């Protein structure tokens, strides 16, 4: 995952302080509720200049840091090479 992404994520996880964010990090358990997920979505879209498709607005997408990152990379132009 791109360090920009984990940095962006941190303030939305009120129970994630002092914890390393890994692809397996459970976002809901770390404090991402439905209100915060809207704000997080806006932050992602601003940061990466993308728009996540309506079809991705499921619990599965917002389940873990890895699943959310996967949804983001699917919208990034390939040449950024950010896909890790």
């Amino acid at each position, binding site marked *: 995952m791109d360090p920009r992404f984990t940095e962006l994520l941190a303030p939305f996880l*009120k*129970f994630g302080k002092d*914890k390393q964010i890994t692809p397996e990090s*459970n976002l*809901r*358990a*770390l*404090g991402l*509720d*439905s*209100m915060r*997920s*809207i704000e997080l*979505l806006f932050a992602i879209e601003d940061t990466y200049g993308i728009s996540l498709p*309506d*079809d991705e*607005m*499921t*619990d*599965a997408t917002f389940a873990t840091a890895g699943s959310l990152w996967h949804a983001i990379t699917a919208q990034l132009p390939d040449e950024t090479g950010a896909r890790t």
Partner: protein
Amino acid sequence: MDLTELGDRVARVAEEHATRTDRDAVFPAEALAELRATRLLGLLVPVEHGGLGGTTEDVVDLGIRLGRADMSVAMIFTMHCQQVAAVVRHAAEPLRSQLLGRLGQGQEYLASVTTEAGKGGHLLSAEAALHGDGSRLHVDRFAPIVTGGAHADGFLITMRSPDAESPNEVSLVYAHRDQLDVSGSGDWQPMGMRASHSIPLKLVGSVPAHQVIGQHGKFPEISTTIFAPMAHLGWSATWLGTAAGALSRVLRLLRGPEGRKRFDVGSELLLTRLSRARQRLDGVHALLRRATDTVRDALDLSVPNHQLLLNALKITAAEQCHAAVQDLIDAVGLRHGYLKDSPTRLEQALRDLRSASLNYSNDRLHLADGRLALLDPEVRLV
């Protein structure tokens, strides 16, 4: 025997005791006994576990049928079915076979413990935590409002998962009454839903570790896929049945000999009020059937448009069923709209239905729906 006949049997018993259980705010023990005897308590239990193998649609049909007789009995039944649905979908062996076997025989009535002091109706967080020591889970939980809590054989309880890092890690655990020390004052003096006997309880005890339903921390998933959908369908069916029963009793009164003398059925005001009440119920009914089909067919209920439909059902049913009874009270006036002893029983229906918008707060659902609406900019209607 077909389900309609079984539902009629329970409804007859419920109706027989409705005035007393409402007046005295006591649990409808006779109706529960009939739910056991008909094995409707095992409606959703698969046939291979000895149950009736019924569907969500059957729960909705029976919720409406029982609601026509008594709203508290209907809610007791549909909420029990919500608990059973969670067990059927998520309980693992050995709990699964043991519990479904008892449920299938109608031997076990399950109460629901999700509300907690301090968080109100917020489903996806929990204050009191489970403590595990490997083989057992220790439960110590205050439950401010538990429908049928004094009569339940078992409880499904939400609590913070053992070793949780946040209040958002919530587990659902089953406890049999014998595994708990159940205490409480028994105080219950509400406006309506008096026969639901929804008392505050303190539950303390310990259960084998395998009595967690699904895995630890998995309650949010259970909630989205089963708990919330079944609650909204079951409640809406209950409320619709209550309002439909009220309308039916008013129409029979108007068409009977006394009604023909007392009321002018040519009155445009009366006709318009009857029309409005009926219109509200047809709207709720259509939404309820649509939502029931969606729950049956949808691959992922977590997508915003499905959640929006289910929440819209709950909010709309709560508002419209209550409003329909208000219309009817204006339509028939003081004697048959406001006095307790009228055969229309509008007075009780109105008090009972007043709980609908509070029972999982409509305000809370509107906030959720506003956010969900933002996640569906295309507005994909279901």
